[in-house]
């Protein structure tokens, strides 16, 4: 049990290597950096495999109980007692504790495994980039945070990882900081995530208020004890708040906007963080909180609907994008939507299964795209590619496999997991969610279409490259292609772990996860129809045929439209309905809307709204006033004269004479009144505050 007992070593290894990079990275050679950074991840992967192996015997001996290891009390203390919902005070504390159960085991394995492959790939991809050690330092820091997130035994630890991965994603998106768009995208990612985090934090506070603990195992056992009624308003509040956090991290509507922009980061980062691991943290958190979610059916409904809508929304945008990484980014958002759809209908295991298979094929797609970009010398626009299949055969073959997988072509991983989700959506809850099945089905067609569009435009059709680019094209080095091949292998065979009974399997994946989601089946027994029977109903085979049809249908459509695309080819959607095409190409103008309304980066006519607008309004006088005050004597006189003129002219006369006209001006400068550097004004505001206070006091 050595490896299991020392499970905390797994996150420790990457952070140690990150620390080495931080302090000494500058002086290390590339080989040394590789040895440290890749070496620790390989070790972490090995350690994880051994720990999970040991856990399986531990679980067998302990009635499938999760393994917990508490190191020390981190946040809070036993002495600080806070009142709770139940009336019993509870100590405000969260431990630095680790938890291994089937759910975290799955995440642990694919995060370290895929992470290891991507690290190896990066040694090739980043070989000629500046800041090599910095890149790997950040990457290792990310691995640390992600592993903390997965292995933490309470919400506070999870939050540590949660914020940590957000921070690393911020650092890595902004890695090419010379590009202005990169630092903007990094900022956007962080801020949008903070909005989700605010919701998550609220959820966490509410959980502690209700349960008096942050620990998963304690909360789960209370939630499953049957003391809490299904539909308890507290549970609905908690789960909705938690889901708000998941929406931020896992890029669901309406907070998905950061993920497509995050593609400004280096491609291995997109593969690791923005496809395979970090963005699934929201799914993990919801799955981890499954005991709470099943107590809140309305929240489940919200999760399912948001998931389904996100799936089709992002897929539709993905249909027309031209940047190869953006197509994949929207595809990721869309696939995450599928996962939430599964969670929402109560098929937690199916959702987790899709996370698992998706990690392989999406990482593969991104790494493949990276290999293409590498070969093209940095070109990302598919309009300038074409006919690359022969020039970079390994990349082509592996990417083609991944495309088959994600499109749901039978026999590959994606087919099993996606079909499982669709089937569960159809069959669960007495078919209450069949409308969502329709959405999921349409999305499946779209998925297949945009993925094969990507394949045709990149690897087949006619070459649309410039001549210099054409000469430059070369296959990537071994360090990059070997991870591609390994991932391709997984993309094919990972699905057989969850082979459903209807296809002669036993769904070992679900069985493995059963202890985590088990009690849920008893709890919502009324809501869920009888467990799958021994022999599958014929409708399941019918639906399966339909989704196979969706996969091949999309393929067929894409091959017709793009099979022979030459220079200046026509987008079929553009030809059919230009307005739809423009809307999709501009991503439904959501980004613009946000900029007008919330951030204030864009002006609505003369008025700037949103946060920046408020800030500007509260402080616009810097250049004119403060500088003026510094520049010499007599400033009080000059300023007060200037301002009383301004005031007299615009307010005293203005309001009476032409009020409406200056109203717009007033809106943009309201708080100017309060801060223009004059002591009298400051005192005035204090007096107003004082009067308010005294008035309240004598009321």
């Amino acid at each position, binding site marked *: 049990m050595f490896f299991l007992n020392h499970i905390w070593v797994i996150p420790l290894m990457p952070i140690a290597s990150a620390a080495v990079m931080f302090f000494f990275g500058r002086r290390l050679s590339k080989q040394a950096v590789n040895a440290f950074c890749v070496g620790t991840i390989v070790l972490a992967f090995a350690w994880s495999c051994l720990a999970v192996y040991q856990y399986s015997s531990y679980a067998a001996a302990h009635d499938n109980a999760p393994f917990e290891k508490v190191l020390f009390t981190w946040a809070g203390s036993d002495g600080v007692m806070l009142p709770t919902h139940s009336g019993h005070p509870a100590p405000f504390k969260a431990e630095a504790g680790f938890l291994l159960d089937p759910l975290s085991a799955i995440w642990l394995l694919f995060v370290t495994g895929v992470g290891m492959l991507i690290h190896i790939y990066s040694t090739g991809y980043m070989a000629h980039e500046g800041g090599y050690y910095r890149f790997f330092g950040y990457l290792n820091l990310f691995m640390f945070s992600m592993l903390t997130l997965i292995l933490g035994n309470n919400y506070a630890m999870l939050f540590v990882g949660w914020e940590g991965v957000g921070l690393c994603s911020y650092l890595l998106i902004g890695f090419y900081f010379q590009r202005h768009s990169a630092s903007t995208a990094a900022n956007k990612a962080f801020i949008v995530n903070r909005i989700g985090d605010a919701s998550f934090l609220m959820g966490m506070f509410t959980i502690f208020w209700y349960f008096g603990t942050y620990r998963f195992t304690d909360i789960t056992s209370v939630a499953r004890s049957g003391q809490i009624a299904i539909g308890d308003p507290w549970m609905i509040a908690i789960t909705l708040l938690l889901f708000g956090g998941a929406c931020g991290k896992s890029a669901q509507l309406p907070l998905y906007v950061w993920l497509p922009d995050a593609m400004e980061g280096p491609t291995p980062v997109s593969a690791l963080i923005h496809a395979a691991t970090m963005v699934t943290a929201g799914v993990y958190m919801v799955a981890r909180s499954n005991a709470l979610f099943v107590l809140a059916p309305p929240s489940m409904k919200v999760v399912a609907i948001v998931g389904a809508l996100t799936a089709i929304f992002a897929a539709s945008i993905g249909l027309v994008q031209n940047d190869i990484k953006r197509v994949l980014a929207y595809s990721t958002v869309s696939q995450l939507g599928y996962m939430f759809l599964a969670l929402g209908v109560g098929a937690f295991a199916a959702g987790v299964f899709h996370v698992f298979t998706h990690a392989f094929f999406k990482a593969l797609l991104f790494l493949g795209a990276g290999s293409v970009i590498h070969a093209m010398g940095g070109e990302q626009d598919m309009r300038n590619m074409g006919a690359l299949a022969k020039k970079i055969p390994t990349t082509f073959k592996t990417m083609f496999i991944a495309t088959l997988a994600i499109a749901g072509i039978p026999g590959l991983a994606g087919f099993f997991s996606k079909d499982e989700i669709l089937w569960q959506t159809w069959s669960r809850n007495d078919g209450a969610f069949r409308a969502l099945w329709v959405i999921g089905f349409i999305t499946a067609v779209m998925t297949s279409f945009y993925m094969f569009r990507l394949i045709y435009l990149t690897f087949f059709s006619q070459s649309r490259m410039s001549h210099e680019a054409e000469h430059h094209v070369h296959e990537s080095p071994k360090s990059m292609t070997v991870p591609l091949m390994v991932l391709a292998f997984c993309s094919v065979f990972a699905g057989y772990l969850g082979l459903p009974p209807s296809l002669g399997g036993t769904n070992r994946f679900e069985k493995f996860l059963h202890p985590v989601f088990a009690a849920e089946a008893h709890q919502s027994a009324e809501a869920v129809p009888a467990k799958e029977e021994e022999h599958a109903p014929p409708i399941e085979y019918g639906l399966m045929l339909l989704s196979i049809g969706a996969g091949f249908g999309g393929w067929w459509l894409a091959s017709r439209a793009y099979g022979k695309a030459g220079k200046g080819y026509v987008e079929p959607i553009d030809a059919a309905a230009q307005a739809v095409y423009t809307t999709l190409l501009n991503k439904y103008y959501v980004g613009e809307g946000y900029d007008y309304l919330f951030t204030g980066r864009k002006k609505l006519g003369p008025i700037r709204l949103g946060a920046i607008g408020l800030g500007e309004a509260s402080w616009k006088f810097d250049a004119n006033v403060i500088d003026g005050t510094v520049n010499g004597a*007599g400033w*009080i*006189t000059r300023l*007060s*004269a200037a*301002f*009383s003129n301004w*005031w*007299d002219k615009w307010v*005293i006369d203005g309001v009476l004479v032409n009020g409406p006209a200056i109203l717009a001006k007033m809106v943009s400068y309201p708080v100017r*009144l309060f801060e223009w550097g004059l002591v*009298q*004004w400051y005192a*005035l505001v204090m*007096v*107003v505050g*004082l*009067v308010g206070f*005294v*008035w309240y*006091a*004598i009321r």
Partner: protein
Amino acid sequence: MLHLALFLIFGVIAVVGAINLIAQTHPINSALSLVVVMGSLAAEYLLLGAEFLGAIQVIVYAGAIMVLFVFTIMLLNAGAEEQTRGSKVAIIIGIPGMVIGSVAVAWALIRAHTGAEVPVGSLYGSAQGIGHLLFRDFLLPFEITSVLILIAIMGAVVLARRES
């Protein structure tokens, strides 16, 4: 009755003096107004039975400090200060604000009045009472005031010194 009348009269004088203090543009006029304020405050203290405080007020404030003020002003030969045109906002918001605030506080004071009379001279106004308070109960604040004065002197030195 006479007490009350005198009290009110001196109160009005103090307030008028204080307003005049701000309204005047020439520093010397302001300083003289301040003498009026201090003097009428001393009278108020006396009327309340705080003889010691009244006497100190006259000697220290109205006497010593104000003489120092006036001397300084004359030595510096300070002229009338430059008047800003003023702003209507201060008049429109500031003065009513202050008035409302004062009225509110006054109203609270009146409401708090329980009607019980406090006989003149029963407060700690006597020299003995002051001495007892100052050198026993309030010894620490009294001594710590020296730090306050020290720090204020340092401030004056720092701000007044010419930089080389």
